[in-house]
């Protein structure tokens, strides 16, 4: 089936099989920031935006893109730069495999919740797993990014 959609601000058309998953479509289009970490919708590594809201691309049929807009980290380089710097300054990147999904969800959080508190931050991002950092350095980076004092 032929679908047309907007990806990272550009119009695109693709011939896909009806059972194609969004994650696979995006990676086949070169959006390699989108990672697969679990197959069961638990890890958050494949998070992208569909019409500006975060979704797990492993759980979205690609056919649903028809007429919609998808955004990956490749399309958010400028917006992501400031938070990425905060992560780097804490050494919170570590292996980096979960970073794209986390960053894109932090940017979604920023758009959705004005002045989030620490509990809102943790709740919103609880689906973004990380095995390297134990989350502490990521939280420090987020507090810095959102201009919060560190307790």
């Amino acid at each position, binding site marked *: 089936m032929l679908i047309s959609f907007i990806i990272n601000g550009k119009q695109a058309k693709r011939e896909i099989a009806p059972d194609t998953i969004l994650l696979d479509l995006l990676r086949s289009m070169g959006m390699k920031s989108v990672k697969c970490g679990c197959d069961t919708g638990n890890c958050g*590594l494949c998070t992208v935006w569909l019409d500006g809201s975060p979704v797990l691309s492993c759980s979205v049929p690609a056919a649903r893109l028809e007429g919609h807009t998808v955004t990956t*980290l490749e399309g958010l380089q400028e917006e992501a730069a400031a938070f990425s710097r905060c992560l780097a300054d804490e050494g*919170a990147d570590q292996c980096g495999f979960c970073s794209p999904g986390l960053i894109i969800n932090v940017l979604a959080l920023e758009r959705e919740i004005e002045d989030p508190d620490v509990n809102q931050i943790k709740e919103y991002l609880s689906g973004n797993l990380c*095995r390297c950092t134990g989350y502490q350095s990521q939280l420090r980076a987020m507090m810095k990014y959102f201009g919060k004092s560190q307790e």
Partner: protein
Amino acid sequence: MSEQRYVSHAIRKLDAGALLSGKPVYTDDLAPASCLVIKLLRSPHAHALIESIRTEAARRVPGIEAIFTYEDVPDKRFTEAGQTFPEPSPDDRLILDRRVRFVGDPVAIVAGEDEKCVDRALKLIKVDYEVLEPVLDFTRALDHPVLIHPEDSYVAKPGIGTDQYRNLCASNLRGKGHVDEVLAQCAYKVEETYHTKAVNQTMMEPFTTYCTMDIYGRIKVVSSTQIPFHVRRIVARALDIPKSSVRVVKPRIGGGFGAKQTSVSEIYPAFVTYKTGKPSKIVFSREECFIHGSPRHEMQIDVRIGAAEDGKIRVIDVHTLSNTGAFGEHGPTTVDLTGTKTISLYRDLDAYRFQSEVVYTNTVSAGAYRGYGATQGMFAVESAVNELAHKMGMDPALIREMNIVRQGDLFSDYHGQRATACTLDQCISRVKELIGWEEKYPFVKTGPHTVRAVGMALSMQGSGIENIDVGTVQLKLNDDGFYTMMIGCSDMGTGCDTILTQMAADCLGCEMDRIIVRGVDTDQSPYDSGSYASSTTYVTGGAVVRACDSIKRRICQEAAALMELPPDQVDFDGNLIIDRHDPDHFMELSDLVNALQAGFGRIIEVTESNTSPVSPPPFMCGACEIEVDLETGKIRPLYYAAVVDCGTVINTNLARVQTEGGIVQGIGMALYEDIRYSPKGKLKNRNLLTYKIPSRLDAGSVHVEFAPSYEPTGPFGAKSIGEVVINTPGPAIADAVYNATGLRFRELPITAEKVYAGLKEIKGAEDADITGTHALRQG
């Protein structure tokens, strides 16, 4: 060594920009689109013999390139464990075997042009099995009538106590003094059995490998691995081809934690590309990472520990039974750390004994997981020390302060080595301050049915493996005076590329951006044992320091010749080579390189390797504060205080993040991560829905500080950090749970269900007798 502008600072990782902008830097991102997709047909039985396999129908599926079964592979047994040659793990596996030994054991390799056709083909392969009785209970595996490795081609390695006809992968016994006699004299003793499960590393990037054939007909293996040089050896042996025919390249790795110290995925695409000449790849699903990964060895550890009236620990006896699963990867070596790293925490023992058996079962083959046996051992021995303190009515912090190893001590069971750098005493006292030990121990009631309690444990590990691990660094001086630093150790996210560059920049007296670090390509990088056993900072770091000293000498030598001075009359400050007698007489480094590249001398390149006769342990103390809901059994980790002695801290950010990450992995093992098998041997927890690693809501807050010592044999005084940090949460949390509830758990994980059931049992007993601990805490 000149002034430290980089060492002991919080330097950003060199690859941060690429990683954080989502660049295609991992194995699957780099695999050519033309790769054949590989999947494995897996055994549904824990133990069986293949009677027949019919692949004709599967081969007819359009797009299928090749299907291989046990009839197609070399008959030379090998091990997938990646340790320095001579690898101690037995050669006990084939690429595919007629005998399948666990549920998930590969039966056929299927390669095709896309996932769809491979999935179709997998369904069309017909296998008839002679189903055999499996050995699933590791406590009954030794001398079980069913043998897991009866094959004649099995190769045991010398000196590790293997007996394949007893299901015995390895065994050991050592000690000092008369354990039973001393124990009989002790006023207080604890004799208990502890049990830890085969927890999974759950690195975010699954096992991933792709292979291509290069222009010389050699196999290029690109893989997410911690051990590129060992993969070269393993693949060559498995395929029965010369090592010179294999090249291994490691791109960025999405975490390893030891999982990738076993070549779990490499042999399949290597075999397919070798047979077909075509590029191929395998990407394990998360489920496959569970059912065919390389998890921690499940262990049952009997501990006997005795102390005199005054609290002096006199004797420790550790007997470990380790479950290596279907194959022996890392079996003989992991078990040893349950003794060395635990017994050596305590000084002046009158007697100790360490005994071990490592047995085969029909479960997933175990491997290396951060902590490597020390984690299991520390849960047992540190729990026993806590139990001993409670028995004596003594503060568990105090019994440790009385008995721990001190600077200058000969370790109790550590290959005759001394504690040359040790601030463990400071670690304990600072942790007590951080957590408020005096006020909070043992528990504080916080609500009608909630209690907060604290618990403590110690840990030590090693820094590489003495006299075995090798790190090598090659430094080249290039145009304008920039350097290329070739290393063979694997940065797996830990940041070793960065910290080794920090060291080199300080040694060479230049900016970090004048050093280009490159790893790892076995055709180009100098040999390195790999990134495991907490070795990169200490072992490869030592090679960095040597290589820098060596290249500085070469720089002075070549410059002095051009300046017409004897070599010992010039100094190198990082940019200028200066006449010691005449500061106005100097040469710029860039001019020196230009001259050398124009033929006025010899080009400057050096290679230095490093092996250490000792493996200085890092130490730490960890204490947790938890809240337990006495109605539901739910345990909430609130706060974890950790103080680490890793010698000199090379990168303050990265060392801290290593510590925080290790502690939260340890919390996962203590509270959430369970591995369970069905009665027929099928692993039940095979995805992240049923195998629960901590999320950011489950971790609590972790506070890390350092109590640096100075290790004389380490680069800049450094020891290691990677593994020591995972060992304390198990025993510390178990003791906090005891302090909160009166319930002693000697098996991990300590789930809410177990606590609830335990509390219910106590309550039942106390309804008849109202003076128990539960009533006390219910207040």
